[in-house]
Every structure is written in C-alpha cells, then in structure tokens.
C-alpha cells in the first residue's frame, strides 16, 4: 500500500516536470535563406540587353515603405506602397501585364541600409508566394561616420 502511494507520487512528479518543461520551453521552427554574392544584381543580370525578362525594382525605404517600378522607370514615376498586401497585388498585376508580352518578371530587392530586416524578408515572402524570381541587392553603401 505504501509502495503504491509512493509510485503514484513519483508519477505525479514526473508528469509535472515533463509538462512544466514543455510549457516553458521556447521552441520555434527556423529556416534559412541563402544569400548570394555582393555583386550588383543589375550589373550581373544586364537588364538593358534582356528582352525576355522584365526587371521590377522594389526599393525598401528607411521608413519601411516600398518604391516599386520597372528598372527603366524613373524613380519619380515609381509607385510608393506601405502595406505588404498592396505590394503583393501590385506585383501580381505587373506580372500579369508583362506576362501578356511574354516577359518573365524578376524582382530586384533594394533595401535602404537603415530599413529593417523584417521588411526585406516580407518582400522575399511576397515574391515566393507569387512564384516570382528575386534577387536581393546586397551592394549597399553606408555613409562614412554612420557607425553604431
């Protein structure tokens, strides 16, 4: 009888410790995004000579807003977007428009040095969701003296 009581208490303790650890543990699934070299994607891909692909630039501002337009569109004519959902719609419609001309859209992501990493990941997610090839411009120059 005493042994049985001890066993029940032992099981109680074991289960509580197990559930306690499960509740407290901070398990999160993570993955990784391969980063290419630091060459300028515009130089590497040579959009001026490419008739089969349309290069759409998504510039991410320091404030997190997106400036979207084809690579040959002047900056002042590009569309400024704040919401990721709107960006998704714009890229989808650009893809549909340019698809009619048989041109494949390639998204060139150009983040401002002070823009947040999350915003770049958001744009990459949009491209993946829409099945658009993307290239992240890592050729960011920081003004001298701008150290943490």
């Amino acid at each position, binding site marked *: 009888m005493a042994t049985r*009581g001890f066993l*029940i*208490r032992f099981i*109680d*303790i074991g289960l*509580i*410790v197990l559930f*306690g*650890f499960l509740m*407290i543990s*901070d398990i*999160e*699934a*993570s*993955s*990784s*995004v*391969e*980063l290419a*070299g*630091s060459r300028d994607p515009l130089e590497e891909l040579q959009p001026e000579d490419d008739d089969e692909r349309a290069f759409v630039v998504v510039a*991410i501002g320091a404030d997190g807003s997106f400036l979207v337009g084809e690579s040959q569109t002047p900056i002042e004519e590009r569309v400024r977007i704040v919401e990721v959902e709107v960006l998704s719609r714009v890229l989808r419609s650009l893809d549909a428009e340019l698809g009619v001309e048989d041109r494949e859209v390639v998204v060139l992501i150009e*983040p*401002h*040095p*002070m*823009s*947040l*990493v*999350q915003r*770049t*990941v958001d744009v*990459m*997610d949009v491209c*993946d*969701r829409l099945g658009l090839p993307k290239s992240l411009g*890592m050729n*960011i120059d*920081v003004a001298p003296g*701008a*150290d*943490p």
Partner: protein
Amino acid sequence: MQKSGFVVRFVDVVLILLFGFISISSVRATEIDLAESTETPAPAPDTEEVLFVGIRPDGTYLVDEERIELRGPNELLEYLDAQLGLLGDRPVSVRIRASHDSAMRFLVDAARVADELGLPKALEVRMAGGGE
C-alpha cells in the same frame, strides 16, 4: 487518511512546479528575435560546420552561442578568420541570425565579411504559418 494523501500529492505538485520555474527561469535560449517568414521552406540538415552570427538591433554581433559580443565588421572578420583557422579543412558556412528590427546595413556588413572569407552565407528566419 485519503484526505492527507491528497494534500501530500498536492504539495508535491506545487513544490515541483515552484522549483521547476525557479531552476528554468535563468535559462535563455537566445536574445535575437528573428524576422518571420511565411514562405521559406524547412531546411535540410546541415552537412557542414555552421558559424552562427547573431545581430542585435543596435548592430552588435553575437557569436559563440551569443556569449561573445563584437562591435563592427572588422572584429567579426577577425573572429571568423580565427575560427576558420581552428576548423582547418572542414567545410564551413555562416548563418546570420539578424533580429527582425535590426537595420539591413548590419546584415550586409556581415554578409560582406563572409564574402571576404569566401564562406557561403544564409539568413536565418523564423518560420510562421505557411512555412513548410
């Protein structure tokens, strides 16, 4: 008798919970809050030695399981170079764990350091929702 048995078990449960929380409360897996991605797929197992580089929002780099703080890409370059020396001929890659609210310039600096050392690099993200 049954009542005292119940009380004893209840006391056990409470004490275990209490000591469990006390002992675990100092454990902190990581201070880096990764950017969240809904589309990045689940990774394949690593086949090479991975050097993790954490990036805080203020631009500080964290290495060696976030035990060492490095300020600036020059210190990061020195550290990674030293690690490469210790690892010899083993294939090595760099995994950058940037906080979601850190500036891109720090990520780019870390990426350039990896490029200078000829190391493949990847940005670690937290999978959310639709990630497979």
